[in-house]
């Protein structure tokens, strides 16, 4: 995982946990407050409902009393027995002279038939049918919560010797009042029928317990049944949408908090990674460059922190490497060094046709006699520098400095096209450079030195040769020795070349054939040429 991603997560995860914990705590608080408030509200409604029922049952009993008299009972019994309701009607009329008219009353005969009925403005017409309710026949029940014609009623009964008289008090106004005063929705159910409901749109299928959703609002439902209820249930519904709003607000805050945390984490991680990742990446790039041999690289990193110190150390390391490379280049030459880098330090060689150039200063011993050795070194360095530059300009490489001479190779370790031509051109230039150098020395009143150059082309073994602890790139073979011998035959300022070299020159160089010479190690004379220009 990238450094930046790690920092991002390191900030985001704790922040998210923190926001999550805060939101969780808020939700818990809202839920517990909801539970408390809703439970209290529902309990208050229950208590109020019970109080209202108890009060209205009392009122109902006060209504019942005047109807539970011997005269009234006798009138009902007579009506039940003979069907004659005259006396009953008279009795009711007499009672209603002093009583408020009950919301509902009905008299029933021996076979439970309705003898007369009153429900508000509606009086049961002859032949109307209203089902008898179980409690009317149950001697253990006198007053109940029930329904007449689909409306909620508290009802009580008078039981004469024959027949039945029912009195009812309409509950709707009281339910309306409880609903209005306590702000809690109420529904009364009788089987599938809704006898009363303060919530438009509610029906049984929406649920009667737990959370109930009506018209986009959530309610907490509490089913309640009274001992005296003939109805299936009274349902109280507490509107909890206010808490839902609070909850969604808390969740919104949580989401916003996490979004802010993400933003902050992104910004901070990007800021920190700019201070860490980018320098590290620059260091990585620089390391790659060094690996590919570019020691000139320098990492620019500001700051005194760990990364800054690492960069500084890196730069120091680069400087150290660069010094070593310089030394190596000077002592080994770049091409040879590259050869070593490419091939490693495994010893071994290969056969190759190359051109070998030997140079030797004539009259060196006598010329330097009486000179300060330090001046000799300075002089040699100056001269060798000039000659090596000339060789390198023509694509050759000084393989060895041999005191007052040198050996150079063209075509090794890197292959070179027309190595013989380049070598001869280099030899001619070397003589020219020495001429100019001598002019400058003569002008300063110093002694002149001249050199002879021998060039040969042929197959040699070239490769890494040496002990385990030290290696050298060396040329071995007869052709090397021949080049050296030819050099020995060259007069000062002369460039001698062998027949093999001459054959590879073509017409680019003007040559003059000299007398064949006998060289050491060969039993026959060989053809030699002088390269002129």
């Amino acid at each position, binding site marked *: 995982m990238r450094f930046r991603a790690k920092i991002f997560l390191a900030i985001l995860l704790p922040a998210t946990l923190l926001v999550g914990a805060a939101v969780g705590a808020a939700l818990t608080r809202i839920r517990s407050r909801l539970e408390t408030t809703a439970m209290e509200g529902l309990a208050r409604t229950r208590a109020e409902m019970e109080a209202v029922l108890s009060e209205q049952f009392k009122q109902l009993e006060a209504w019942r009393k005047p109807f539970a*008299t*011997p*005269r009234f*009972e*006798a*009138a009902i*019994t*007579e009506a039940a*027995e*003979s069907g*004659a309701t005259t*006396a009953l009607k008279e009795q009711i009329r007499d009672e209603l002279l002093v009583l408020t008219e009950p919301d509902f009353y009905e008299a029933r005969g021996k076979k439970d038939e309705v003898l007369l009925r009153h429900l508000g403005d509606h009086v049961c017409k002859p032949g109307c049918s209203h089902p008898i309710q179980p409690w009317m*026949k*149950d*001697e253990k029940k006198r007053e109940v919560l029930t329904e007449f014609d689909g409306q909620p009623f508290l009802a009580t009964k008078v039981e004469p*010797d024959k027949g039945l008289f029912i009195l009812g008090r309409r509950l709707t106004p009281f339910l309306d009042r409880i609903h209005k005063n306590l702000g809690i929705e109420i529904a009364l159910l009788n089987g599938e029928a809704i006898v009363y409901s303060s919530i438009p749109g509610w029906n049984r299928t929406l649920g009667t317990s737990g959370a109930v959703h009506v018209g986009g609002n959530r309610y907490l439902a509490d089913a309640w049944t009274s001992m005296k209820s003939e109805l299936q249930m009274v349902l109280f519904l507490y509107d909890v949408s206010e808490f839902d709003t609070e909850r969604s607000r808390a969740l919104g805050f949580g989401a916003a908090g996490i979004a802010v945390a993400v933003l902050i984490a992104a910004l901070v991680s990007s800021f920190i990674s700019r201070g860490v990742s980018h320098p590290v990446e620059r260091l990585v790039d620089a390391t790659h460059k060094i690996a590919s041999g570019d020691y000139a690289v320098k990492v620019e990193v500001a700051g005194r922190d760990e990364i800054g110190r690492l960069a500084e150390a890196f730069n120091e390391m680069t400087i150290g490497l660069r010094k070593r490379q310089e030394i190596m280049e000077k002592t080994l030459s770049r091409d040879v060094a590259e050869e070593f880098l490419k091939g490693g330090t495994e010893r071994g060689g290969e056969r190759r046709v190359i051109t070998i150039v030997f140079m030797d200063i004539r009259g060196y011993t006598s010329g330097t006699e009486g000179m300060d050795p330090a001046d000799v070194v300075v002089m040699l360095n100056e001269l060798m520098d000039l000659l090596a530059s000339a060789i390198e300009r023509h694509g050759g490489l000084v393989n060895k400095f041999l005191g007052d001479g040198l050996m150079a190779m063209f075509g090794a370790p890197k292959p070179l096209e027309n190595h013989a031509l380049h070598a001869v051109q280099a030899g001619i230039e070397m003589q020219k450079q020495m001429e100019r150098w001598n002019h400058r020395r003569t002008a300063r009143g110093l002694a002149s030195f001249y050199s002879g150059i021998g060039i040969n082309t042929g197959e040699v073994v070239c490769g890494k040769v040496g002990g385990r602890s030290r290696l050298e790139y060396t040329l071995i073979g007869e052709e090397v020795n021949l080049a050296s011998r030819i050099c020995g035959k060259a007069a000062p300022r002369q460039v001698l070349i062998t027949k093999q070299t001459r054959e590879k020159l073509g017409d680019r160089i003007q040559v003059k054939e000299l007398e064949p010479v006998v060289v050491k190690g060969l039993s026959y004379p060989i053809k030699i040429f002088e390269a002129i220009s």
Partner: protein
Amino acid sequence: MLRFFLALALVCARPPAQEGASVSGKVTATEGAAQKKLREKIKYGPNLVGRRDPDPSPVVVWLEGAPASKAAEAKVEMRQEGLEFRPRILAIQVGTTVRFPNGDDLYHNVFSYSKIKRIELGRYPKGDSKEEKFEAKGRWDLRCEIHEHMRGYIHVFDHPYFAIAKEDGAYVVPRVPPGKYTLVAWKEFFDPVRQEIEVRAEGAKIDLTLVRIDGSPAERAAGAQGAACCSAR
């Protein structure tokens, strides 16, 4: 053999019949929930523990379809005493006057909402008495508006073929001319039961069972079946 003894017993118990034969038998009435509930209602006493049972209300048996006959004017009493109508049941012939003397130390009242004729005797104290002449046949259920448990019943017939059964339900309707009648048995809080009978010279012996009126429709249906099992011997 049994018949012989029964006939002998009847002959010994009553003066010999002038004409016709007697219709006799036994009426069984088993109380159901409805009757028990109502009987509970007419118990009276200072508290629940001290409440006492009302006076018995025996079964009344009569024949329907008998020729009307006028009886001599008579006077009978139904006292109001011990917070009861005493006796609680009267069976009389049309034209009879019933006196209602108050024998208690408190006011009583007598009223009936009978469809045939209302009775309204008002409230009156101990020692006072009101009376009512019954000039139509039918039944009057009497109550006292002051004491709600009090129940009295007066059955008025336009013929003499009726009887009040003994406590065990045994009844005898004497001197019934042979013919076809409907025998009716009535008891407080029960639905009356009727049966077609034919009275021959030697009389008839008929047992009846009164229908229980219970709360549940199932019990009522059972009661109705019970009524059908009445047997004639």
